[in-house]
Every structure is written in structure tokens, then in C-alpha cells.
């Protein structure tokens, strides 16, 4: 079952199309990351899903409810943390928690206390006097303590130092491990996403360019280095799944986007006789960069 589904979701700001015909399925229990450069439409997508913005066309359902009808009852099961959210900065951490608690029938005071300890948050300090990272942790705490079915994080790591990021991620991971929680996050901090996400979707100029499990994505991308023998053939007629092909002396490097060990090595040896083939796994960040560059190149060609 999917906790979030979108069909042809489109959102325009005047003539600018921020999200275009987006189809998305976020499975129950998954940690789903929306990746993309600035202006790709990640935040707009989340805002439409949260009924902060109305879709121009298309449909989105969240926890089985049409996003346009997402009301108070559904929100008791959704946690939302955003870098841009206007927090009640004049309140202390304790006051924020006391204010939020009555709205959630499932609020878990033990979890609240545990997260307070884990995040090392000073209860009596006003949010205005907290660092940005601490304030984000307070916001996360106020979104985790009622054990939401769906946690939505919009650029949660932006501007946080590594230590706070680690705290933040551990917090999310720990609670998501405790039950059937679904996490949807939008970010361009790919290293952090790699630690968290089991599904990724990539957006570019409002369009989805990729959507699959992180595991399979990383399995099918390899950076391949071919060390040529005596013969140095021309780099022509190469498979379309090889991208960013470059030659440096006797070494040909490329990224295989449909990697299968036997098939890829076979294809290399067919073209490069006596060549030594080494395929290295890629990080999500490297894959993201390759795809982003590919997108830009395709756009330039089309132009």
C-alpha cells in the first residue's frame, strides 16, 4: 500500500510550471527521498501534498485522503519539518511541546522525554535563543513525539553542522525503525539522503527523471575504467547506457547506467580487445551528479 500517490500532479505559479505531471508512489514504511537541484520543484511538491498549496491539475492522495481535503484529522498522523517553517520563536522548547501535545491523541510522553534527552535540548530556552540546528531538532521532536504515520521533511539538513545532522538522522532512523513509519524527504544533501533513503526520485525542472529503490539505483550505476591494450580503437558506436565517456591516454572511463557485470564486461571486451575492465560502485551523490549533467547536456542538445 502506498502512503502517498500522485497522478499527473501539476502546479503552476503564473506562467511558471514548478511541477509537471508528476507521478509518484511512496510505499508504506519506506524512507523516500526527493532529490533535485534548487528550483527542481521538490518543495512545491511537498507543499501540494501537505495542502499548503492547491494543485493546478492532477491528483495527490496522502494517507488515502485527497491532498486538497487534508484536514485536521489526517494531520494528527503527519509530521512535517521544513527549513522554512515559521516556528513560534518566542516559546521555550517546553512551551512548544506543551502547546502541541493536546492536538495529538497519540502523543507519547515517554518518546518525548527520550528524544529530549537524545537531542540534548534545553527545555527552558526560547527557540529564538537556540541555534538553527537546535531549533530544527526541536521542530523534529514536536513532529515525532506523536508517532506519525507519515513524516515529511523539507530540506531538513540545510545549514546544519555535521554533528547536528547526525543527531537528526539518528533520530529519524530510530523512530522509523520502531514501526511502520513512512518518511518523505526533499533534499539536495545527498550524502545524508544516502544514509536514510531506501527509495529515491529525482526531479528536474518540475519533471520526474528517475524513481526507484536506492539499492537498485546504486546497483545499476558503475564507474567503469577500461585500460586499453596495444590497440586503441575510436570511441564510436558505444552503447547509449554508457555516459560521460572520456579517454585519458590508454584509459577509457565512463559511467554505466545499466550495469550488469557480465554484460558490461562483455561489451567492453567486444570493443576494446585485451582491455582490463574495472567497475567501481558509485555513491548516490556521484549518481546524482551524473544524472544532473546528463539532463543539462540533453537540454543543450535539444536547444
Amino acid at each position: 500500500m502506498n502512503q502517498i500517490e500522485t497522478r499527473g500532479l501539476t502546479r503552476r505559479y503564473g506562467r511558471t510550471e514548478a511541477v509537471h505531471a508528476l507521478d509518484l508512489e511512496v510505499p508504506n514504511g519506506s524512507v523516500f527521498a526527493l532529490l533535485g537541484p534548487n528550483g527542481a520543484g521538490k518543495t512545491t511538491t511537498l507543499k501540494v501534498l501537505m495542502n499548503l498549496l492547491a494543485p493546478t491539475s492532477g491528483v495527490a492522495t496522502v494517507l488515502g485522503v485527497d491532498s486538497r481535503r487534508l484536514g485536521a484529522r489526517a494531520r494528527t498522523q503527519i509530521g512535517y519539518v521544513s527549513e522554512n517553517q515559521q516556528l513560534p520563536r518566542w516559546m521555550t522548547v517546553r512551551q512548544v511541546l506543551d502547546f502541541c501535545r493536546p492536538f495529538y491523541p497519540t502523543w507519547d510522553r515517554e518518546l518525548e522525554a527520550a528524544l529530549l534527552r537524545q537531542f540534548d535540548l534545553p527545555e527552558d530556552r526560547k527557540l529564538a535563543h537556540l541555534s538553527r540546528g537546535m531549533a530544527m531538532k526541536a521542530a523534529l521532536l514536536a513532529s515525532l513525539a506523536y508517532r506519525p504515520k507519515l513524516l515529511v521533511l523539507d530540506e531538513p539538513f540545510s545549514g546544519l553542522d555535521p554533528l547536528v545532522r547526525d543527531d537528526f538522522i539518528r533520530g529519524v532512523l530510530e523512530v522509523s525503525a520502531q514501526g511502520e513509519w513512512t518518511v518523505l524527504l526533499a533534499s539536495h544533501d545527498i550524502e545524508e539522503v544516502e544514509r536514510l533513503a531506501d527509495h529515491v526520485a529525482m526531479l528536474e525542472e518540475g519533471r520526474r527523471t528517475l524513481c526507484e529503490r536506492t539499492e537498485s539505483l546504486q546497483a545499476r550505476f558503475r564507474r567503469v575504467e577500461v585500460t586499453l591494450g596495444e590497440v586503441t580503437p575510436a570511441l564510436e558506436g558505444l552503447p547509449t547506457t554508457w555516459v560521460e565517456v572520456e579517454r585519458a591516454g590508454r584509459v577509457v572511463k565512463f559511467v554505466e547506467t545499466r550495469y550488469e557485470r557480465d554484460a558490461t564486461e562483455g561489451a567492453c571486451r567486444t570493443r576494446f580487445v585485451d582491455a582490463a575492465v574495472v567497475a567501481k560502485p558509485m555513491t548516490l551523490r556521484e549518481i546524482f551528479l551524473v544524472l544532473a549533467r546528463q539532463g543539462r547536456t540533453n537540454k543543450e542538445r535539444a536547444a
Partner: protein
Amino acid sequence: MVRKDLRRMAWPVLAWLGFLVASAIGVVLVECQLERVTPGAAAEWMRGLRSASIGVSLIGTSALVLLAGVLVLEDRVAGTQSFWLTRPIAGGRLLRAKLIAAGGLLVVAPIVVHLPVWLVAGFDGRELVRVAWHLGLVNAGVVVVAMALAALTENLGQQAFAVLTTMGLSVLAIEVVPAVFDRTEATRAAIGTQAWVILGIFVGGAGAALSWQYRTRRTLAGWMIWLAALVGFVGVRVGWTWECGRAGGPPAMSAEGGQIAVALTADGELGELRPGAAIQAVVTPPTKGPPWVAPWQGRGVLRDFEGGSAEVEFGLREGWGFELARLLTGVKRADSSLPWELAVSRRPQWERPAASRSPVFSGTMEFVHLEGEVWYEVPVQAGAIGQRGATRTRVMGVAEGAKETLLVEERRAARAFPIVQTYPLEVDRYVLVQRSTGALCRVRALGQRGVGSGGMLVDILMLTAEPAVDLRREGWTLIKVRLAARERWVQEFRDLPVAKAGSSEKGGQ
């Protein structure tokens, strides 16, 4: 949610209430100062006082608008970044909480902090209810409009811009638009009713926009609602030309009824009556005692005996104003003729020029029924003090000049705070009457309110007497009347002679 807002707003509201109390104390200090002001310096002093009063009112009202804005923008409705938007809080529930907090902090609290002052000042139960109602109503109206504009904007800067724009448009609607559409005369006749209609549209439109915005968060549509209210406001100002209850027109009364006698006299040459020329109507009411009768407007034909004629309309003479004109017939002299001045408002088109004629008027005149009471009588002598109940009036002096100027200080006399007075809700105006001869002197209040706060004010009158009379003679009495003009009717006249001023034409029926 209400508790959160009360906690959030506590200090700013306390500061504002402190300002209100301080300004109330300021009123007391002003009153103490009054005792030392000499009649000669009073006019200058009063001008300064009025400026200060405007400043205090502006600060108090601006603070009220600001506080209402802060209350709403604490959990802003427009935009997508507010904390509450992603929490299980329904818009209607949040609006309820905001209204409760606003009602408590910005409407009830000012009344509560003023209550001890009013009690010490000797307000009776009726006055307490009246002043509390008035203060609460004014604050509630301002708060609803300010909250609506804050709900449609994302920060205090935008809210301030929206408030200033609204004020600018309101000034345009009130002052400029009617002039452009030449509605000045018509709207003056209906100004009282119009004000309530406009207020209803204004506050009602703000309430509708506020409710819409909280329930749907469709800001553009919310602005459209507000814009529709403003357009309605302008529309009323331009198109509304009648008073409530007058839609069917005043009832007609036959001339044969013979209930009212009117004598018309004109200033200057009768053959050269031009727009603005005064025709004085002396009205003799049919019965003694109140209610009194006053002409309101008329239209018909002026004919001369050589066959020339001209359509003519009478209206209130420019500059006198409705209430002032009513005063002239509001004096308790029902057994004698009351002078009344109308003006020719449309140029007569004589068929043949004539240097001197005695035209007659045939047409209809509309009358109003007036009710009132004399509150107190004060001989107009410098230093004279009149007192009725707890209200005391002191004449500070009689100025020299062609148009005599009086400075009259009126105050509510109470032991602790002798200056306190509830806001006047009735039409209160003044006339002078010569006790010995019964002659009337029309007076015009140039300045009325000095400085006030929270239902209390030092009420100083600067009166100009017209026409010039020797007010230094003894026996002039200042009379304050309360008037209510609700009944109206039309009476038809045939061949009513218009006499030259100073001649002794008899009135007709």
C-alpha cells in the same frame, strides 16, 4: 490556543493599556491646566490641545491595529510557512481562538481598565453601559478590519501597507468620488444613514474576508471579497441618496390642511435671484410646544405677475449644515415664527428680464419634525457658570470682532475627575437666545472636542455666532438642544409671495 495568544500578547497589550490609562491621566492633567488658561490665550491653547488629541488618538488606534496584526500574524494565514498549517488545527477553530483573544485583550480589557476611572468619575449605570458599548464597538470595528487585513497579508509591513491603502481609498471614496459624481448635496442629505450603511459594508466585508481566509486560505479570493466591500463602499457613497425609511418618499400633506404658515423673503433684488441667493422661510408651526417644525427642502416655480417664470429648488444654505439649520427651529419657542433660511440652488430662467418684481412661489416644501430638550441655560457672560446635574458650563470669554466668538468650556463635574464625560451619541448643538426679546442667534461650533481617552474627554466649545450680535449685552442664554428628526412630510403651496427682505409680506398657507 487562546492561552498561547494571551501569553504572547500579554506584554504588548499591557503596554497599550498603560498608554490608554496614561492618556486618561493626561486628560485629568489637561483639566487641571484648564483652570489656569486665560480667555485670551484659550483659542491658541485649544488648537494645541486638539493637535495633541489627534496625536493621542492616532497612536492609540495605530497601536490597536498593530496589536490585532501581531495577534493574527503570530499564526499567519496567508502563505505556506506558518507552523499551525501543518498541525491538526482547523481554520475555523483557529479563527474562533483569535476572536476570543482579540475580544478579551483588545475590546474587553480597555473597558475593564477604564471602569474604575469611570466609576470614580461618577458615571451612573446608563452612562457606564453607554460608554463601554461605545468604546467596545469602536475597538471591535477597528480590530475586525485590522485582523482581516493581517489575515490576507504575510507580515506587519504588508499589513501596514494594506491599512494605509484602505485608508487612502476610504478618503477617496468619502471626499473625492462624490465630488466627481456631483453627489455632494444628495449625500449630505443622507449622510447619517449612509455612514451606518458604509460602516456595515466595511466591517461586514472585513468580517467576511476574515472568515473566508481562515476557512479556505484562498488569499486571492479573500482580497476579492475585501475589494468588493470597498467597491460597495464607493457605490454607496456615489449612489445612496436617501435615508433609511425614506425610500417611499415623505408623505404628502395637503395645503388645505393649513397646518403650517410660511413667509418667504429674499435678500437683494427679487428680479435677480441667482443660485445661492438666500430666501428666508419663516415657519409658523400649527401647535404650541414640541415637536417643532423645520423646512428641509423645496422645489417649484417662481412666477412674476408679467408672465415670467423660473423653476427653482431650495436647499439648505451652503455652510450652515443640516444640524445647524435644525437648531434654528429647535428652540423652544413654538408660539412664535421661527426664521429659516434656504437658498436658491438652481438658477431661475426668467423669460423676460425684469429689474424689480415680486415673484410668487408654487410648489412643494418638505418639512421635518424635530424633538428636543433644553439641557441647561447659561447666560453668556465671561466667567458665567451654569450647572445642571453634574454638567457644568463655564463661559471663558467673549471675543471682539464682527463675528463674535465665544469660548465656552463644558465639563462633567464630578468630585474626583471633574472633566469626565461620556461620548455624546445624540446630536448635541447650541443656540443662543436673547431672553428679553426672544431674538435668536445661530451659533456654529468651530471646535468641540478638546482631548479625550477611553470615553472621557475635555469638551471645549469654540462657538462663532452668526449673524453678529452684541453678545456683551446681558440676557443672552446658551441653550443646548437634543434633536431627532425622524418624521417628514411634503406640503404643497400655491402662489406663496416672496417678499424683499425688510418688507412686510404676509405668509401663506
